[in-house]
């Protein structure tokens, strides 16, 4: 069975989906990703779907599930590189990918995660000064 590679860049995990997703690959990806988030302690997950020609309800649901899993593990998920044709199809189908943040490209996705993470740090610093020593 083919596996989707997960790359670590700084504080972010990058998943580039290059193959047609099947049930098995999707489940494997979810398991691998959850494991990697816990292992690395990353705060952001970027899923790159530039190579996908078709995003159907199955892939949509998989993305939602991954986003939910990451959220539980305190990592922000951003889907990047959706093609115009894919976006139009999704709108025509009435699928809205609820709860998923999107960005135009990987660069913007990283900015988005950095901004979200910075907000969080600010909040912690403002609210409880002790948090500074607690977080490495």
């Amino acid at each position, binding site marked *: 069975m083919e596996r989707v590679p997960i790359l670590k860049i700084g504080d972010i995990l990058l998943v580039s989906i290059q193959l047609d997703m099947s049930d098995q690959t999707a489940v494997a990806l979810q398991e691998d990703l959850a494991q990697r988030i816990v292992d690395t302690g990353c705060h952001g997950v970027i899923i790159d779907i530039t190579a996908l020609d078709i995003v159907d309800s199955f892939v949509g649901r998989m993305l939602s599930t991954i986003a939910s899993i990451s959220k539980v593990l305190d990592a922000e998920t*951003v*889907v*990047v590189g*959706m*093609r*115009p044709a*894919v*976006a*139009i199809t*999704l*709108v*025509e189908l009435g699928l*809205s*990918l609820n709860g998923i*943040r*999107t*960005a*135009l*490209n990987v*660069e*913007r*996705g990283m900015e988005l995660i950095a901004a979200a993470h910075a907000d969080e740090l600010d909040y912690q610093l403002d609210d409880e000064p002790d948090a500074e020593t607690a977080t490495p």
Partner: protein
Amino acid sequence: MALSTEESGRLVALLNGQDERVTTRWTEIVTSSLRGRLSQAELRRQVQDLHRAIVASGEQGTIDLSADSAAELRAALSELSRGRARQGFSATETTISVFALKDVLAELVQEAGGTDALKDYVAFSKLVDEMGLFTFESFVRTRESLIADQAEQLLELSTPVVKLWEGVVAVPLVGTLDSARAQVVMERLLQTLVDTGSPYAIIDITGVPAVDTQVAQHILKTVVAARLMGADCIISGIRPQIAQTIVALGIEFGDIATKASLADALRHVLRLNGVETARRQPRRDI
């Protein structure tokens, strides 16, 4: 409907016999119907072309407009109607150039007399009618292709996507938004977002004369598609009447930002981007 060999022969004889007179009379009738919008010389040339084409196909035996032998005649007729259609003449003004031949023939047949005069004239008339119909059809075809070309050009011209600022693009929509145009606008906007990597798009509807549920639906779809790709859309240029229509129709724009003018929309985006606009002391020239 074809002329028999004898009838064609007589027609050619008639036309050839008084070559000069036929073209002059024919040109006269056409000129009076067009009220001087084409020069006499040009009309005369066209009439001579037709005359020559009829004689040429008649000399090959029977005259049948749909046969191969009449290819030259058909070409002459289509060239005439194409020219007229492009110059903006009406259908009547175009076909009368052909139907004028009937009057000429009537005069000629009457003068020639003979036992078969009436029969001949009816046969000739039928041929002229057929030529007239052919002319009319190619006139309409030319007009239709003109309209199709223009519609395509309009589609191309009317949907520019312009860059307003770093990371901000705008689509000034002008004219009625139907499904075909909305599709083109949507595709072009989304493609531009990808190409330029702009996270903000402003859809300006100042030039859209009316917003109904269908137009709103198209705009909403575009905004949702852009969001799916990770870009934010702002709708601007909503005129007071349009705002009233939108509310009256119960259209919900949800959490999509709407602004009254393009300037407001740009200011909104710049503020989101953290760009400060400062006013300097204006320069005074005394």
